[in-house]
């Protein structure tokens, strides 16, 4: 009898194991549920971080913008799956590309969506920057009539890939919008559209100067703010799609119409998986997020006496 008392009975063991397994299953299910939701929320933060990387850098570069009528400022609507700079301007920011003694922190900065050779050609946002030599700063392509050269002097442009850095892996689409200066005057856009009055409309082709003849130049004094729209996916989803699929995804986000903001035009596409190509894995289509930010350029204020 006394010998038997020193050990558990089979019934005791079974009861104990039952309780242990119930507790185990409970804790495991709680842990797996929290793990799932925490990874989802981490991915959403990751997607915002991608957008923030881009927005912060664009903000720093635009803050240093050399906003002069005799310095080039170029933007272009770049179709998805082709490469070319979406935005190109001169900014007072540091970059390499000139000898140290010649480098005075004035650079040509460009942004584009480019297949990333280091990431199986998946498209992503890259930023090019190249310092302008001190000897060239006073010139910058300006012509005798006071106008900048017809297009950016190629000697100053950053060259891909040497002068470019990946800015945000998860940014697969970018559009640049322009809010016009609300001066109630006629305005012509780079794509040839003429608006009878400028009421602070948001357009996706920049306003141009009307007094420069055949060659047109962007008129930064008639842009009240620049609006940047981005489509991002998080890095987990990025690994689940190839370059073709990501380009197909990017192409489903059209250029927004005039007086529509990027997020207004895109949010329903990003939130509805039926509107994105079914060739792309569902988990990737669910990871799309859209962002926009406005940067002041020439905010409304007294421009001439008695504005209408």
């Amino acid at each position, binding site marked *: 009898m006394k010998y038997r008392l020193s*050990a558990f009975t089979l019934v005791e063991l079974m009861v104990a194991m039952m309780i242990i397994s119930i507790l185990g299953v409970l804790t495991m299910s709680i842990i797996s549920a*929290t793990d799932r939701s925490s990874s989802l929320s981490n991915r959403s933060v990751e997607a915002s971080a991608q957008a923030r990387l881009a927005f912060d850098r664009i903000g720093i570069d635009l803050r240093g913008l050399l906003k002069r009528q005799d310095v080039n400022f170029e933007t272009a609507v770049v179709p998805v799956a082709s490469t070319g700079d979406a935005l190109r301007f001169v900014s007072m920011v540091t970059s390499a590309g000139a000898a140290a003694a010649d480098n005075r922190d004035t650079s040509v900065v460009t942004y584009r969506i480019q297949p990333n050779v280091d990431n199986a050609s998946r498209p992503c946002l890259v930023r090019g920057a190249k310092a302008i030599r001190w000897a060239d700063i006073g010139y910058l392509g300006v012509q005798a009539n006071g106008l900048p050269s017809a297009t950016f002097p190629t000697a100053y442009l950053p060259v891909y890939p040497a002068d470019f850095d990946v800015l945000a892996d998860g940014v697969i689409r970018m559009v640049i919008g322009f809010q016009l200066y609300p001066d*109630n005057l006629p305005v012509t856009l780079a794509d040839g559209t003429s608006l009878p*009055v400028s*009421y602070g409309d948001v357009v996706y082709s920049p306003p141009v100067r009307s007094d420069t003849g055949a060659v047109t130049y962007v008129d930064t004094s008639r842009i*009240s703010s620049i609006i940047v729209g981005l489509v991002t996916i998080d890095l987990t989803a990025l690994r689940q799609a190839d370059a073709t699929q990501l380009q197909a995804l990017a192409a489903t986000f059209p250029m927004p119409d005039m007086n529509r*903001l990027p997020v207004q035009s895109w949010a329903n596409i990003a939130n509805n998986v039926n509107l994105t190509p079914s060739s792309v894995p569902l988990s990737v289509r669910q990871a799309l997020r859209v962002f926009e930010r406005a940067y002041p350029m020439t905010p*409304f204020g007294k421009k001439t006496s008695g504005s209408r």
Partner: protein
Amino acid sequence: MKTSDRPRAAFSLVEVVLALGIMAGCLLSLVALLLVGIKSNQASAEEMRAVNLLTVLEADLRNTHPAANNGKSRFFGLVLPYATNSSGFTVYNPALTVNTVSTATSTGLDENENPLPYTSLAPRPRCQASVIYTSVPAAGSFTPVQARLIVNWPATNASTPQALITMSSGSFVEVNVTFPAP
């Protein structure tokens, strides 16, 4: 053989189950910590969205011409600091009221960031954007109009600027702006 003198060689079943229970309790409290992390993740994503929205809201109020949308801002439909007078000149909006929350100064925004009245019940707006004018100069004065721009989430039915912040439990971002004399 003196079995009563033998030291107890093992835990009793009750002890083991109790220990397991305590361990489970500890694990659960760790999981609760994880939830705090998720909440702060969500708050940070929402805050980034709200900060971006603030920049668009400011651009919208500053740069919409009064004639564009019947004196309201183009995208958010809020009352503008400027108006057009009878001879067609842009002047300060004479109808501005200070520290008011109403449908004229505050709007809800839906999932796609389109305006939706903040009083809407189904669907409820995702967040709320407001312009609270704090200083409006006397007629003919050239001092700037001052305003607070507030984006808070979730949307509230607040009737004062203070309630806007307290009713959304501190989930808000705000910026102070001035509008120069036109």
